[in-house]
């Protein structure tokens, strides 16, 4: 009996040693107490090598959990990740309100331009309302081109609407009788912000806010279809390059005849030729600048109203920056440190904007904060994506012979288009 007890005691010692050994193999935890949440989180134990997502979301302030969710104290990967919002992508539109929305973040006061989420959710990029309305009208499913349906139900919540459309119901292809509309639903609903991309490099894009704000590199593309539209890049930027827009807007065309998407076939060699509509004409600024150097936040992300199609929301024209023969472009001088232009220049410091600077103001009152008037009356513009500086003069006082009522770009293109 005594020998048995000795053997058992030996076993106990061995079990204790095994327990110590197994416990010592656990990683040393790295604690972070973000100033915004004031709650410790231990994500950095494994993710210390992740780059900061952006200068305006420093990890010391935000931490990880406020955006991504997850179990902040868990050091077991499965448990820690199990309650993450949106998997790899907390900014996909179905969870964006919980991840990015709060009054001081991205679902705040429209007056302070903090209502990004509400604007995006009602924008044509998210609703796809224009395409749905057009195709349904074409095949006789609705009497006019007014938007009624969207890929996801949408509602204009601020109680005021210039378009008069207060809500859109969810487009339900099973209720459509025309087979063309069912084909449209099957083949063509994959380029809005909440669509998971189809397989193939020509479809690759991210979902939700990262579709525009997370720069996708060619290295990301092979991994995209495996992880359902949610890449691995940990970055957010307001300096959205044209290549990011091209992910969706320059990859091929939908064809109404066969209700299929046809990827572009050409292999562009330079940026001027990297466009799939061979008939389109460009002036120099249209292919040397990036898309967002002209197209404003409201055009890209919506203005809070529900629009029936893309054309309703697009309003920037040549004359917005260049004026006409009789009118200079609208400008205003920054006088307030709270001015949205200064905030945008802080987020993407390509220009040393300061109080007293005169910048261009669009017809709808949006500042073009990268275009500053110079003392001689000309303008300097800094590309938001590259920081490159351009200088241009207004039309007034030039040799331009345009007709006062011919302000569409096609008239400007007659003289100013570059040869392709």
């Amino acid at each position, binding site marked *: *009996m*005594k020998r*048995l*007890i000795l053997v*058992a*005691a030996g*076993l*106990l010692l*061995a*079990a*204790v040693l*095994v*327990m110590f050994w*197994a*416990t010592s193999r656990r990683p040393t*935890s790295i604690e972070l107490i973000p100033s915004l949440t004031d709650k410790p989180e*231990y994500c950095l134990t494994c993710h210390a090598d992740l780059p900061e997502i952006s200068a305006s979301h420093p990890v010391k302030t935000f931490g990880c959990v406020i955006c991504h969710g997850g*179990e*902040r*104290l*868990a*050091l*077991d990967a499965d*448990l820690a990740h*199990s*309650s993450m919002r949106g998997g790899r992508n907390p900014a996909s539109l179905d969870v964006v309100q919980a991840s990015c929305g709060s009054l001081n973040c991205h679902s705040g006061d429209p007056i302070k331009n903090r209502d990004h989420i509400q604007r995006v959710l009602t924008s044509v990029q998210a609703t796809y309302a224009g395409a749905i309305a057009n195709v349904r009208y074409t095949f006789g499913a609705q009497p006019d081109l007014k938007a009624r349906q969207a890929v996801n139900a949408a509602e204009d919540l601020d109680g005021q609407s210039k378009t008069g459309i207060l809500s859109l119901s969810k487009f339900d292809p099973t209720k459509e009788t025309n087979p063309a509309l069912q084909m449209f639903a099957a083949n063509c609903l994959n380029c809005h912000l909440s669509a998971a991309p189809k397989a193939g490099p020509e479809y690759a894009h991210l979902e939700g806010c990262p579709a525009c704000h997370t720069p996708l590199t060619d290295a990301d593309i092979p991994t995209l279809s495996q992880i359902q539209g949610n890449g691995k890049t940990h970055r957010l930027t307001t300096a959205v390059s044209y290549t990011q827009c091209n992910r969706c807007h320059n990859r091929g065309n939908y064809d109404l005849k066969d209700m299929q998407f046809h990827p572009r076939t050409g292999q562009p060699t330079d940026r001027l030729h990297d466009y799939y509509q061979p008939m389109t004409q460009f002036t120099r600024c249209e292919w040397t600048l990036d898309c967002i150097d002209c197209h404003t936040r409201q055009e890209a992300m919506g203005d809070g109203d529900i629009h029936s199609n893309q054309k309703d929301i697009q309003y920037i024209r040549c004359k917005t920056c260049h004026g006409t023969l009789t009118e200079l472009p609208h400008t205003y001088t920054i006088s307030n440190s709270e001015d949205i232009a200064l905030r945008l220049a802080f987020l993407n410091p390509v220009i040393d904007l300061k109080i007293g600077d005169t910048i261009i103001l669009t017809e709808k009152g949006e500042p073009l904060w990268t275009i500053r008037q110079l003392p001689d009356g000309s303008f300097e513009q800094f590309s938001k994506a590259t920081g490159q500086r351009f200088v241009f003069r207004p039309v007034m006082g030039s040799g331009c012979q345009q007709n006062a009522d011919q302000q569409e770009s096609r008239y400007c293109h007659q003289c100013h288009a570059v040869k392709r």
Partner: protein
Amino acid sequence: MRPSFFHHLHPPTIPARQARLRYTLGAGGLSVYMVLMVAFTGILEMFFYIPTPQQAGPSIQMITFLVPYGAILRNLHYWAAQLLVIVAGLHMLRVIFTGAYAPPRQFNYLLGLALFVLTLFLDFSGYVLRWDEGVRWALVAGTNLVKSIPMIGPSIYIFVMGSSQPGPAAVTRFYTWHIFGLMLFLFAIGVWHIFRVRRDGGIAAPPPELRRDPQRITRFELVRREGLFAILTTVALLLLATFFPAPLAPAMTIVGSQVTDARAPWFFLWVQELLRLGNAFWMGVVIPLFLLIFLALIPYILPSPHPEELGEWFPRSGRVAQVIVGILVLGILILTALAILQSKV
């Protein structure tokens, strides 16, 4: 050798034949050991556990991942508690299948049954205290069984849960039930149960003149055997705690009343399976209650095993009880297996 405190807890000698492991399974002693282990680890856990709805889940994660050896502590608590249900159950079955419940031990049998029920409630309340997404069935469906009792159900529910639905009060109630209310009864009745073992004449055995083997072992030998068993059990518990972590799901943030693909704790899976078959009150309350009442009545309504047949497995005179309990145990095992299979599909 002068007997120590531990020796004095035992009778000076006991019959050798009934002291054999194959007779006792060591289950009663193991139950005591598991209770001590659960109490010891539980007290240490109390230094870290925060019984509020916001903090309960995170504090368990704190224990599991950040407190030095906290994971081992929690896993030991978990495994000792699960093994307690098993060894206490085995102890009860041993008593039934050897006829040891026969007079004069019928009252101590009732005390033992009460201890077993307390153990289940303790395990259940401890399970709910995890306060993570995995305990929703227990917290919502399980406790709703109480509500299904006609007339008095809702009042009992409020008594147990602290409000008319699972809310902030529930975590405090469960905590208090777990570490104070139920534990108090467990210790009191446990001590009484052990006292009654000796008062009722020690381990069940035939009258001395009818014994096949007159040999006896001393309390010194008995304590040595118990010590050996305790050490081996500790080895098993340590290995389980090291390599098989206790379950943990994301902390529960919204209590709500939604139950999504939730499972009952394993020892109540058979009840969950019964609930699929019919009305909550009949399946979830009446049947388990009748089962308990039947078990309690075994020494009083079924033929008593003859004294000369005591101290051996499956005495002839106790057949009726053995067959009925055997069928009931089989039924519970089948229902449990069905529940496990169903949730895997």
